[in-house]
């Protein structure tokens, strides 16, 4: 009897400690609702009521800031989503795609090949932003092991409190407010900016000793291609029209050769400025690195036509999707209005 009582109170104590740990973890993890919001993107995907997307974009900032799914829907009726995060490495894009396939099979996957330049993760911060938002699955586990830098530990992904414990010094009211739920910051993965900063004096790339992409990067591109092939998905590779980081001609040749070899579509938006109508004076908000809303609309308009030509259906008329996109468009327009006021744009 005494033993049972002892065990029960011990179990209760452990339970209380676990609850406290859970609450602390919720409190300490960054919320990414203001300032640096890129860490919130990946998790937002799971909130989508209808994940039956026909087009899935995967990649880094060159997709989540350069293409607008809302514009694609409103103009072409394309049901799409962007699974991207800041400096998302190719293996992270691969595992996010693998993870997305647990929920749906898109007809087309659009992958931005900018990340081929990295053969291993460069920064723990970017790893965190891409991985933490993923739901637990073997894809996430493999993603962690593929991404971890030397200073990182797997257990710190399992228990983020171990990583973020030192935030006790930086906690704000937002950490309390968004402890259990955060506000959405993207529009189907698209991160909107309406302001403009013309691209001037963009630095040329410095000559490199070796322009070859690394083995690891190639390995994951190949894995992505095979995964798409096995699932009957068309893989379209693109290079978004960002002027910086510099995209070398030697890199472009390798990407183009790979696409040719495997019969993939490859679009280098840097070379078709006249067709897309991108104006680097008005269509970028940070001097050529990323597109603003105007640039994203132009790129979506151009790519949407291609996607439609590749057989992506126009799903307007589906009551469920119409309702969802109407709601999203309303929020999208509200954000445009709010940002215009914020940046003093007429």
């Amino acid at each position, binding site marked *: 009897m005494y033993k049972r009582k002892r065990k029960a*109170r011990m179990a209760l*104590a452990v339970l*209380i*400690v676990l609850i*406290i*740990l859970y609450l*602390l973890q919720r409190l300490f993890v960054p919320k990414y609702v203001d300032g640096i919001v890129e860490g919130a993107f990946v998790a937002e995907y799971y909130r989508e009521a209808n994940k039956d997307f026909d087009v899935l974009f995967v990649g880094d900032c060159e997709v989540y800031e350069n293409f607008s799914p809302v514009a694609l829907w409103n103009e072409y009726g394309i049901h799409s989503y962007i699974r991207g995060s800041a400096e998302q490495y190719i293996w992270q894009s691969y595992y996010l795609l693998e993870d997305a396939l647990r929920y749906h099979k898109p007809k087309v996957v659009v992958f931005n090949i900018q990340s081929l330049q990295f053969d291993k993760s460069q920064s*723990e911060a970017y790893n965190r932003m891409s991985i933490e938002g993923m739901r637990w699955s073997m894809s996430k586990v493999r993603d962690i092991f593929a991404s971890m830098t030397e*200073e*990182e*530990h797997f*257990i*710190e992904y399992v228990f983020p*409190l*171990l*990583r973020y*414990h*030192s935030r*006790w*010094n930086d906690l704000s009211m937002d950490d309390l407010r968004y402890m259990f739920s955060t506000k959405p910051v993207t529009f189907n993965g698209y991160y909107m900016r309406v302001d403009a900063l013309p691209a001037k004096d963009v630095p040329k790339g410095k000559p490199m000793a070796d322009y070859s992409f690394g083995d690891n990067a190639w390995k994951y591109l190949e894995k992505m291609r095979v995964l798409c092939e096995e699932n009957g998905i068309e893989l379209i590779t693109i290079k978004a029209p960002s002027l910086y980081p510099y995209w070398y001609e030697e890199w472009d040749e390798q990407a183009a050769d790979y696409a040719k070899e495997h019969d993939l579509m490859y679009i280098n938006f840097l070379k078709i400025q006249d067709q897309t109508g991108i104006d680097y004076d008005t269509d970028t908000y940070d001097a050529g690195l990323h597109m603003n809303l105007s640039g994203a609309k132009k790129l979506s308009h151009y790519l949407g036509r291609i996607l439609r030509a590749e057989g992506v259906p126009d799903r307007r008329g589906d009551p469920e999707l119409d309702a969802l996109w109407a709601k999203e468009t309303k929020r999208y327009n509200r954000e445009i209005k709010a940002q215009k006021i914020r940046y003093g744009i007429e």
Partner: protein
Amino acid sequence: MLFTSYEFLFFLAVLVILYYHTPPEKQWIMLLAASLGFYASFGPVYLCYIGTTILTVWFCGIQLEKNLVHQKVVLEEQKGAGSREEKKNYKLRQKAIRSRMQALCIVFNLGILAVVKYANFFIANVNGALSLFGQSEGLSFVSIAMPLGISFYTLQAIGYLVDVGRGTVQAEKNLFKFALFVSFFPQVIQGPISRFGDLSKTLYEGHPYDPQTVAFGLERILWGFFKKLVIADRLMPLVTGIISDAGAYQGAYAAVAMLVYTVELYADFTGGIDISIGVAEALGVQVQENFLRPYFSTSLKEYWRRWHISMCSWFRDYVFYPVSTSKGMQSFAKFLRKRFGPNLGKRLPVYVSSCVVWFATGIWHGARWNFIVWGWLHFAILMISEECEPLYERFHARFGLIDRKGYHFFMMARTFLLVCVLNLFDCYVNVADTLSVLASIFAVHNWGLLLDGSFEWFGLGLSDFVVAFLGVGLMLFVSIQQEKEWVRDQVARWPFAARACVWSGLFLIVLIFGAYGIGYDSAQFIYNRF
């Protein structure tokens, strides 16, 4: 695999589970495997070093005991036969054989230590001497990785050998059991330096699972983590930053580094020892205490009875006694007594032996002149204190100070400051820098930096100091409590809810306020490098 790494915690958790599911008579095998695995995690090649020490000392120990047994048998057989003189001569011959065997083994093992730890120090000194004679080209430095804990396990193994030679412990016949004694993982890296007679009592016996023992062990580990992560590692950047440039950071900086380092060193070393003892305790093994609240000492002599107890007692038993009772020292004492009277004849040999001990203690800490000077400064202060003892006693008796609390506190503060000053030798790489920095505390008047906000805190903010200050406060409170009784024993008598609050609270404090993970320079324990 540092004690504060996730890998170690995982290793420990798995070990504890497996250990208590192992038949008691085989638990020591599990400990041996864990110890060797733990040691190999720092580099499998290091196993060669510790393996050599284990084999040579074990073999020599067996031979010493064989000789002792043989001598006993021979003397038994000769009972009634042979003269007393013959027996005495026989005993002396056997003792000489044992001494030679023992000396050979000790020299061999100290030789390994000397080569890996002191070779470059020796070469640097030779090169320095050569340059004095105009030789620009000196000897080349050697690149040998120093196995972790070699200073600790070598002393522990030598202590065992001497004890066997003295007949105070029996030689361990089982090589693997002896290997466990030398390599026992909780203490192999930074002590305590255990005696075979003490450690073997609980090391080899089976330990059925006892929740209380395991809980006590885990509590001790947690307390060690608190000291190491919340206090020592939080303060570390400040000390590291200041001592990184002896020329630039002087005066107020030196004073701050001196005080903060003394706190950091205590939290770091005692934290590490708490973890060592706690890990052993969780496995049912009793390891001797290594600290008795040394900063409460009222004299340097007392301080060294309370600080790093196992090392001090080792040098006392295996260096001081053999040196002071050696034939040479006896002759020296005799000569002094004859020439200068009994007083000097008694004291001077003790001081000479102490001088040897403090040299050994200094150089044991590191292959730098700084440590040698540090050791001899200790010797000088202790010798002067000893000589002045009658004066102190008269002074105390005249003013009735000794029982006054205020005076007691003054003596504690004085000893603490003295230790702070001596610890500066531990911080800097050479004697000139140390003395320059020490002098700057009095000569460089830049104390205004502390008030006008321009003092460089090396990344530490107010909140860091608040955490460290509260941590030190808690450590001090616990130390004061422990003067009466172990806090852990006091807490153990509290109701379950209160106990749960205390230990979970401490766990959460370590988890949140510990300086670990990315963004912190997770430091190795300071004593690991000795």
